């Protein structure tokens, strides 16, 4: 009994140590999305300059698609842009864009002109209404949406080939079977 009592602090310490060690590997800026498996909230964003159609939640019904939040001010978005261009060239999946918080209305369109436009539709989001609907905390963020406009997966940070094959592809083929 005495032994048990005396070893208790050590036991508690061990449990805490394991807990904290696991915590060390986590990036506190990557938040668990509260939105996985919930329907996309209603939003209706106007077109960016030079485009005719904007982007709203009703565009997402019927097909498995990707929603990507970007901005011309966002360096990591530039980094993933080549990959998005590849997705659109190879017709892998429709990619919808939310052009988030541009300082002026010309910035987004100019950026897309320079680096190419991989998006099926783009919504202009100067007031974060689209971004908040998706619970976005920073750009880039990408969301996989199923046929019924339900959010199924979220990735924070730039997309790469590796992340795509490892995380996105299996979920997409699963979603397409449904």
């Amino acid at each position, binding site marked *: 009994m005495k032994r048990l009592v005396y070893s208790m602090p050590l036991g508690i310490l061990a449990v805490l140590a394991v807990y904290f060690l696991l915590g060390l590997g986590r990036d506190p800026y990557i938040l668990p999305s*509260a939105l996985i498996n919930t329907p996309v909230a209603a939003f209706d964003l106007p077109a960016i300059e030079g485009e005719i159609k904007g982007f709203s939640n009703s565009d997402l019904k019927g097909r498995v698609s990707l929603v990507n939040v970007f901005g011309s001010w966002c360096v990591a978005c530039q980094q993933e842009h080549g990959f998005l261009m590849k997705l659109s060239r190879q017709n892998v999946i429709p990619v919808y864009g939310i052009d988030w*918080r541009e300082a002026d209305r010309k910035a987004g369109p100019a950026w897309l002109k320079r680096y190419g436009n991989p998006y099926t539709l783009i919504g202009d989001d100067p007031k974060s209404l689209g*971004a908040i609907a998706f619970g976005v905390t920073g750009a880039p963020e990408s969301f996989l949406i199923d046929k019924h406009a339900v959010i199924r997966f979220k990735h924070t940070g730039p997309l790469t080939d590796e992340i795509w094959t490892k995380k996105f592809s299996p979920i997409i083929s699963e979603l397409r079977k449904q």
Partner: protein
Amino acid sequence: MRRAPYLTGYLAAIFLILGELQPAQAVNPTEMLGNDLLEKRARHISKDIRCVVCQNQSIDDSDAPLARDLRVLIRQRLVEGDTDQEVISYLVSRYGDFVLLTPPVKGVTLFLWFGPVVFALLGMLGLVLYFRRQKALIKRGGTP
């Protein structure tokens, strides 16, 4: 008497530092609502909503662009007639409980809320038992 100028200098320095220490005002006058009551409610809600970019600040304190947009959104919803609870629920539905600076009391947060009390009670129990034993030992004539 020669000391006086130094003293004033020191005092001035101290007041300057204190002035700097006052919290910077993040809420921009252009965001504020004309209706005082609504504005008060908006401020009250904002103080308990976490800025998801800067994480340990409330959106009321934060200069982050997203915090600004959230403040504007809260005001817009209040103007449209939402109750405080409806506004808060909307934000929680988008960002999860994490967005609340005061975590709600529920299953997974019970330990967070009551853990410290439990440990304090256990510690007190341990102390009481220890002293009782000491007392009993002394009574029996042994050395503690």
